[in-house]
């Protein structure tokens, strides 16, 4: 299974994400934001956390218009898998691959702590390693993680079962306590919490590891349509 992790100027979780993918058994290539194509045979693209382009204009706004993101959009449109974490989630909403937007935290403060999430769905490659309703502990570290979408979009996400993770105790004002959402085909996941920072016992927790393991298990037996 091949993963590509995109590196933007200001990304700071790219190597953590690559390490988590490798630990789960994936082969990982790092991709620069100016690249116009993804490496041959990539199954999943990881958009890492950080402060791409200094969060100028809006978090993820400049990154979403970078050359590589056109390739990521094409990959997603072909049914390819994409995982966007934190700034990566912001980039996914800015590209329009996922609906909604991430606004300034309701409390206006940068929040950096480990939070409890509820796993809402287990019918995706990302969440198959969890039990429905399972509570997991995963770190968050963001200033703009307040998920917003129109009431109609929120209703659609709920009706289609696309809310993957919810905060047990809302840290940022997110609508309906949403921490992570899936695309309609369930192959794109955007989430503000950092599963890659909870994928090694030496770093304080392993509740994020099943996400990577589930993805690798799914993709080991199934390529992405050309």
């Amino acid at each position, binding site marked *: 299974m091949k993963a590509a992790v995109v590196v933007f100027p200001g990304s700071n979780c790219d190597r953590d994400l690559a390490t988590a993918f490798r630990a789960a058994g994936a082969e990982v290539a790092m991709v620069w934001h100016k690249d116009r194509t993804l490496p041959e045979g990539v199954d999943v693209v990881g958009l890492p956390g950080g402060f791409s382009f200094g969060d100028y*204009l*809006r978090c993820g*706004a400049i990154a979403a*218009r970078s050359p590589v993101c056109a390739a990521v959009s094409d990959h997603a449109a072909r049914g390819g898998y994409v995982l966007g974490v934190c700034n990566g989630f912001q980039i996914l*909403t*800015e590209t329009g691959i996922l*609906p*909604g*937007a991430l*606004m*300034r*935290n*309701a*409390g*206006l403060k940068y929040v950096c702590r480990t939070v409890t999430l509820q796993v809402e769905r287990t019918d995706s490659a990302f969440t198959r390693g969890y039990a429905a309703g399972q509570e997991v502990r995963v770190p968050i570290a963001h200033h703009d993680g*307040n998920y*917003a*979408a129109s009431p109609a979009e929120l209703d659609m996400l709920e009706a289609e079962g696309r809310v993957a993770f919810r905060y047990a105790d809302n840290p940022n*004002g997110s609508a309906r306590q949403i921490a992570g959402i899936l695309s309609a085909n369930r192959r794109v996941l955007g989430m503000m919490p950092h599963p890659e920072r909870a994928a090694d016992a030496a770093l304080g927790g392993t509740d994020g590891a099943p996400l990577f393991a589930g993805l690798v298990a799914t993709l080991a037996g199934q390529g992405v349509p050309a």
Partner: protein
Amino acid sequence: MDDGDARMKARVTVMLKDGVLDPQGEAIRHALGTLGFQGVAGVRQGKVIELDLDEGASEDKVAEMCERLLANTVIESYRVEMV
């Protein structure tokens, strides 16, 4: 100015859409109250982006820039003034 380098400016104002909660505006309103300013019923914070453009640039082109980059129309509205 009648030289060949005539420029135009556009001023783009980007605001959160009505109905989108603006926590920063709310914090400003609260701080104004703390300073003793009375009667501030609401505050909305946005941003102003000034573009220095070649002569002949159209408002439509600036609106396209807003749609594609300057505003996130999921949560923000924009207003273009050619000045």
